[in-house]
């Protein structure tokens, strides 16, 4: 059990559990959080899981914990760990089952004033156009060869097939395509699941949100991103569906034996891993990249459907109702990156589970358009609360392997949420706040009630005060489709 007295204060928004805290830890745990968020984080197993993550072989630098941290399984959600590509491991559980779960933000020049009367119709049309909820949906009749292309090409496949514009790809992390994809490392079962679900939202905490820019904090950065006061935006949060879940399931199971073979001493079986340089590690990397590309393509197809729907519905009342890409990113992923640690530049695999890449200005991976301001960082709120757009900083490159938080982070269990809230009442409360809701299931809606999440504004304040991100704009939700 970890107590507050075990944690050293580095500043008002940075804390550390030293590697001497428990025998076998290979790195410090560095926590980005306000004092009150830190205190709350001690109430579940989140920090215990961060300490467990510090046992991963071949860690470089520190294990990072973001302020939206909460208990997951094995590795905390809101955690970042970098391993040496030559001497370190890759751990599927430290990336998560929903490989490349992520967010993309689209914006328009449409002012909310001109569109207000059409919002319900827009929500209705988006709900019809984009399959959500459980199971199948999306592009029908997809063949295995096409799926193989999606695994290799990601968003490029979408572009080649009329579901994307060039700027969509340019403004997506890794251009919407990870290069190490190897379809031969994907199981037939994952393929079977993947064939049915390209272009579908899924369930759980996945959503499509219509919002407006509420407040601008950095006018220059907002201008660069094409975000204007009161303009309508659409945010899509989804991942690699059953395809990614199956790939992670397959490899967590395989790596149980691999961890034994390499005699890794791990405090949790869900952290099972393989040396990244080994055949097993490379196999998972190849399969994980396939799932990442699948998710990039999935969100791209949904963005395309959202764009068509937006134009069709709003063309009556608004001039040029066109949705352009702001940015798209991953927040459950393993990335091969080069980072400066001390005086050395080291090639690492950065495991980000519930954490967002937040590269600062001038970094080569940041799209040309954002070179001066840094990479956009998208922080979805929780139905009833604000979402945020931030930018990465130079300090994030030094402190957190260029990473930031990914959302608000849960504080209440799903079971607890069902005891506390009722679906109809929650819907009414949200509608009174001016938020229109479509939900696949009332039970799912209740489990995702805004009150079960931390205060997203405090989470954002923590990353900003720790200097790993800068505020650009705040978005107010207007209408939400919950999967």
């Amino acid at each position, binding site marked *: 059990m970890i107590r507050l007295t075990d944690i050293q204060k580095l500043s008002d928004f940075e804390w550390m559990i030293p590697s001497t805290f428990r025998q076998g830890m290979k790195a410090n745990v560095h926590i980005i959080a306000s004092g009150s968020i830190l205190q709350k984080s001690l109430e579940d197993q989140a920090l215990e899981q961060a300490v467990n993550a510090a046992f991963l072989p071949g860690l470089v630098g520190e294990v990072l914990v973001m302020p939206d941290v909460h208990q997951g399984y*094995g590795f905390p959600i809101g955690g970042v760990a970098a391993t040496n590509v030559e001497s370190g491991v890759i751990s599927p559980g430290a990336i998560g089952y929903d490989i490349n779960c992520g967010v993309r933000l689209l914006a328009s020049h449409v002012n909310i004033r001109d569109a207000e009367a059409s919002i319900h119709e827009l929500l209705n049309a988006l709900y019809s156009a984009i399959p959500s909820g459980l199971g199948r949906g999306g592009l029908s009749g997809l063949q295995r060869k096409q799926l193989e292309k999606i695994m290799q090409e990601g968003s490029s496949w979408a572009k080649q097939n009329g579901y994307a514009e060039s700027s969509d790809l340019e403004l997506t992390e890794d251009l919407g395509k990870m290069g190490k994809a190897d379809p031969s490392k994907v199981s037939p079962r994952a393929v079977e699941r993947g064939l049915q679900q390209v272009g579908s939202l899924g369930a759980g905490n996945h959503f499509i949100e219509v919002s407006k820019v509420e407040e601008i904090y950095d006018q220059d950065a907002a201008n660069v991103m094409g975000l204007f006061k009161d303009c309508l935006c659409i945010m899509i949060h989804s991942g690699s569906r059953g395809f990614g*879940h199956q790939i992670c399931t397959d490899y967590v*199971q395989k790596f149980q034996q691999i961890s034994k073979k390499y005699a890794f001493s791990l405090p949790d079986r869900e952290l099972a891993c393989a040396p990244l340089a080994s055949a097993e590690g490379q196999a998972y990397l190849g399969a994980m990249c396939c799932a990442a590309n699948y998710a990039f393509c999935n969100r791209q197809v949904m963005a395309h459907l959202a764009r068509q729907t937006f134009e069709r519905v709003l063309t009556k009342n608004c001039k040029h109702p066109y949705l352009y890409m702001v940015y798209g990113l991953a927040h459950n992923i393993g990335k091969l990156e080069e980072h400066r640690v001390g005086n050395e530049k080291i090639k690492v695999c950065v495991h980000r589970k519930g954490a967002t890449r937040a590269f600062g200005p001038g970094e080569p991976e940041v799209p040309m358009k954002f070179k001066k301001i840094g990479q956009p960082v998208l922080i979805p709120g929780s139905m009833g609360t604000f979402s945020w757009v931030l930018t990465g900083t130079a300090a994030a490159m030094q402190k957190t392997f260029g990473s930031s938080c990914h959302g608000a982070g849960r504080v209440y269990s799903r079971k607890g949420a069902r005891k506390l809230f009722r679906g109809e009442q929650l819907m009414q409360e949200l509608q009174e706040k001016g938020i229109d809701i479509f939900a696949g299931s009332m039970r799912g809606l209740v489990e995702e009630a805004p009150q079960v999440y931390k205060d997203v504004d405090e989470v954002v304040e923590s990353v900003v005060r720790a200097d790993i991100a800068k505020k650009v704009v705040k978005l107010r939700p207007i209408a939400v489709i919950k999967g």
Partner: protein
Amino acid sequence: MTTKQGFKEIEHTADAALHVWGTTLTEMFQQAALGIYAMAGAQADDSSPIHRSIHLEADDLETLMVNFLSELLFFLDEGFLFQVAALQINQNKLDGELSGSRVVQIQKEIKAVTFHDLQIIRSENCFQTSIVLDI
């Protein structure tokens, strides 16, 4: 545990967890299957059942449990809810006969069965474990 076999949802911040128990290993595995269906809110139609056999083998019972429940989740994703008609577990090997119908409703997507904190505990006349599911 007021009954000899059963399942119960337990608190977990982000995901979901089940406590399952039975007087035999087989009972506990069957309860785990019922538990994930209940958690998913899965309901099937009354079409004539289809039958499927499963044969699994693992290094230990915990892995066997993850494999077993992962099979059922895969079938669920395919659109079939399979009840366990017969089950035998012997030396980390599982042989089962399943009887399934088409899923008509699911309320919650369970992404995966995890190894986190998974430990099958055997005491006198009772097998029990907790299972954390990724939601």
